[in-house]
């Protein structure tokens, strides 16, 4: 029981008044002359006991009256009352719409169940309550709105296949709820409490809030595919078969079988099956014979979370580019290019790629490049600095004449350096750099478009890519001879040159890899619309961010004036969503330091209704107390001076001579 106005209980001190009156009456100072005392004495003798009882009853009634009046004034509230009877409350509903919430429970997704829970909360809200609805993935859909508006806002919460960060959302909720007057503040964490989505950082401001959290659903084992990789990235040269791999992972206890069958579907046709152990990677080599966009998926039998049983991929197959070489005949580079041409990795005809060696007797002039790469066509330049230091100045001048705002200078330091991430360039052999040039910082208009593809171990750029008016270029910081690097004499030379001419010089095909749902992509400038996996086509503006939230293949359509046609983006469930194990209570309380955490059984609607709006007031029993006061007052009046018995009075024959 609580009191709305507890200070009014002080009125109960007034019980002293009837007590004092009662005690003072023991010292009676009023004296009444009364000749007929004999009748009074006989009455007193005969009814002393009842008179005493009456006195005590009167005292009890009067004390009770004072206490009841004080209680009624204090407005006692008994029990917790209905959920709708509570002080104005600010409620932040953190709604987990991440991929793990798409699990089914009783033929309903966890997300839908939590949305129903939120609706039940809103149905019990009062007109002065305000709500913030914060999806874990995405922006808040309601900020300080009334319950009816919050109900409408719930419709805007959509399921996603992205990964959420409950900790961040809880932090947002703590910051969002204003502390105003006597308003209560509650945060309803409607989530499956997935451990991997909580993070490690405690939530600031948690101590001032009441956190009401449903218990986690039953722990569920889950098999998943994750970490899709394509050896060629999202683009491949016709005739080269890229490798596609994904890891089969199992969470939650031991799987029924040690291995799992991974099925490769390419454009709706099962093309391959692979049996792999849980925890191992399944590898498929796909054929890229036809030029164009291709897509497919790797899939395992369904278990636990369904969305992570599939990994989508997309592939852009292009014709092998024709490569022309301007440089020292018989050098390592020319031999490597000849090898690639012999293997069909490069094509013939008008050159798509022009490899320029700084040691060439004559560096190609602009008109020559246009002739070699075709008039009006964009060209790709692979630029290798001269091994002869005396030719460095000429090379720099040539770069400037080509609009490439990079100047090479000699590196005075001695010793070998390594190159970062050699596996990224297609060879597992270590690349050692014995001699190099320092690449000056770029100050030209196109400085922002230059990117470092490889660096030496001291952090200096070793391979950069940039754009010119005529196309793209890649520039090495070392000559490709045995004196400058270890490459020419290593097995990595051919793959390195292949990468130079086929991949790096072209630039990364957008987006370059399969992405996780929820990853923000910057659309190509030529993007015009996107076909979503659901079939919906959405108009977009090129160059702006785009956030794919569902898994599948997204088709980015480019403007007709551009030559890109359509790009494919494969979107998969983030690996962090596959581990469905819930966070422990101890961890939850550690992440919400000082916060009052109320855990509610997940499937008991009544328990949830009981838990929310903790500031609810109990039933106001003051009207009943006032009724009791009236009854007691009447009783007191009756006991104090009972109404005359008219019949008996008449029998006395008092005022008339009988």
């Amino acid at each position, binding site marked *: 029981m609580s009191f709305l106005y507890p200070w009014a209980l002080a009125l109960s001190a007034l019980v002293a008044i009837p007590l004092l009156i009662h005690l003072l*009456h023991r010292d*009676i100072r*009023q*004296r*009444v*002359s*009364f*000749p*007929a*005392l*004999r*009748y*009074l*004495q*006989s*009455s*007193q003798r*005969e*009814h002393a006991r009842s*008179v005493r009882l*009456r*006195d005590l009853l009167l005292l009890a009634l009067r004390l009770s009256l004072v206490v009841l009046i004080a209680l009624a004034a204090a407005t006692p509230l008994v029990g917790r009352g209905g959920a709708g009877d509570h002080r104005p409350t600010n409620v932040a509903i953190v709604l987990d719409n991440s991929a793990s919430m798409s699990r089914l429970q009783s033929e309903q997704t966890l997300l839908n169940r939590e949305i129903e829970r939120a609706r039940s909360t809103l149905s019990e809200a009062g007109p002065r309550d305000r709500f913030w609805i914060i999806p874990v993935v995405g922006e808040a859909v309601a900020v300080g709105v009334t319950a009816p508006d919050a109900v409408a806002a719930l419709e805007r919460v959509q399921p996603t296949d992205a990964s959420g960060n409950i900790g961040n959302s809880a932090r947002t909720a703590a910051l969002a709820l204003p502390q105003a007057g006597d308003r209560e503040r509650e945060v309803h964490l409607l989530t499956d409490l997935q451990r991997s989505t909580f993070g490690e950082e405690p939530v600031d401001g948690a101590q001032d809030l009441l956190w009401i959290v449903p218990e986690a659903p039953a722990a569920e084992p889950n098999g998943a595919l994750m970490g899709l990789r394509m050896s060629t990235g999202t683009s491949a040269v016709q005739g080269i078969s890229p490798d596609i791999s994904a890891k089969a992972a199992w969470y939650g206890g031991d799987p029924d079988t040690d291995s799992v069958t991974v099925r490769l579907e390419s454009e709706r046709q099962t093309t391959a099956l692979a049996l792999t152990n849980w925890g191992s990677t399944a590898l498929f080599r796909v054929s890229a014979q036809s030029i164009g966009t291709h897509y497919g998926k790797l899939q395992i039998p369904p278990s636990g979370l369904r969305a992570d049983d599939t990994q989508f991929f997309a592939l852009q197959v292009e014709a092998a580019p024709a490569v022309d070489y301007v440089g020292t005949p018989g050098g390592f580079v020319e031999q490597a290019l000849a090898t690639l041409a012999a293997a069909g990795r490069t094509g013939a005809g008008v050159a798509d790629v022009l490899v320029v060696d700084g040691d060439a007797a004559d560096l190609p002039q602009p008109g020559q490049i246009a002739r070699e790469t075709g008039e009006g066509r964009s060209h790709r330049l692979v630029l290798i600095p001269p091994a002869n230091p005396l030719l460095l100045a000429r090379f720099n001048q040539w770069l400037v004449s080509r609009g490439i705002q990079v100047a090479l200078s000699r590196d005075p330091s001695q010793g070998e350096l390594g190159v970062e991430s050699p596996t990224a360039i297609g060879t597992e052999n270590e690349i050692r750099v014995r001699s190099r040039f320092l690449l000056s910082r770029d100050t030209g208009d196109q400085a922002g478009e230059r990117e470092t593809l490889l660096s030496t171990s001291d952090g200096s750029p070793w391979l950069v890519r940039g754009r010119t008016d005529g196309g793209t270029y890649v520039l090495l910081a070392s000559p490709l001879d045995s004196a400058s690097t270890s490459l020419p004499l290593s097995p990595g030379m051919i793959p390195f040159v292949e990468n130079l001419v086929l991949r790096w010089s072209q630039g990364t095909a957008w987006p370059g890899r399969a992405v996780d749902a929820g990853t923000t992509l910057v659309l190509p400038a030529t993007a015009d619309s996107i076909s979503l996996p659901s079939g919906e086509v959405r108009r977009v503006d090129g160059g702006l961010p785009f956030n794919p939230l569902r898994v599948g293949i997204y088709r980015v359509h480019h403007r007709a004036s551009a030559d890109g046609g359509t790009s494919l983006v494969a979107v998969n469930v983030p690996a962090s969503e596959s581990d469905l194990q819930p966070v422990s209570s101890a961890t939850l309380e550690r992440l919400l330091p000082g916060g009052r955490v109320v855990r509610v059984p997940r499937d008991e609607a009544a328990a949830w209704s009981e838990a929310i709006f903790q500031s609810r007031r109990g039933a106001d029993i003051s009207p009943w107390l006032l009724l009791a006061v009236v009854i007691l007052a009447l009783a007191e009046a009756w006991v*104090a*001076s*009972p109404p005359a*018995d008219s019949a*008996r*009075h008449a*029998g*006395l*024959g*008092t*005022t*008339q*001579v*009988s």
Partner: protein
Amino acid sequence: MIPAEVRPQERDRADRPDQLDPHKLADLGNLELVARGVVDGFLIGLHRSPHRGFSVEFAENRAYNPGDDPRFLDWKMYARSDRLYIKQFEEETNLRAYLVLDVSSSMAWTSEAGRFVSKLHYGRMLAASLTMLLARQGDAVGLLAFDDRVRLHLHPRGSRRHVSTVLSSLAAIQDGGATDAGAAVKDVAVRLRRRGLVILISDLLVQADETLRALRYLRHRGHEVLMLHVMDPAELELPSAGEAVFFDPESGDELRTNSAALRKHYREAVSEAIREWRLEALRMGADYHVVSTDTPLGTALGSYLEKRARLG
């Protein structure tokens, strides 16, 4: 103020002194005036004369005048003096009444001085009215006032002078001390040689046994007894004093109690006492009436008239 719609008879009745509130009546004048007004009003209300059955007693002779009734000629005087004399007779009462008035200190009490007269003053007015009424009927009236002893005694007589003496004595009498009604009544029995009517006006806050014994003695001697039990309204209905110490001004006894708590039981006790007095009166052949000090005197006189009618 009498409402206009009251019928003439009722208006007349309301204007009559015998029907006035005793407290207002006391303001009309001295006791004799009050008594005369009460009796006059009372007799008007009876519509017929109460005078009956006179006997005669010789008083004096006077010279005969023509036209005098020859039956009253005094032939003995004529024989002695040879002159005609007419015998004149004094009216003689056929009743000797004794008014026995309690003047003890308890009689001087009133519960509300501005509203009710004291029992003593009421008894005085009642006694005076009875005196006047008895005198009008030719009865002899005696007076005995007592507290714990006889304070005043006037032998019954029927003359007008005596009536004046009784009235003035009543007006002058003051309240006394304790009560001994038994002794007073016995004293009356001793003094009253001829059979008569004894009217006891008292609050009966007395030793009941002794008083009743004396009254029985009176009855044994052949006297008629009329007991007028005068009570203040607050003695019938206990006053609302709450918690208080009640004390008897006559005996000095005290009782601490709550009037509200005892009112019901008190009323029962008073009722029982009245019932006892009435029963005892009935047993001894006496008449008993309770008269409240807010009762018009005419009503009380009615009780006497009822008794007088039975006496013939």
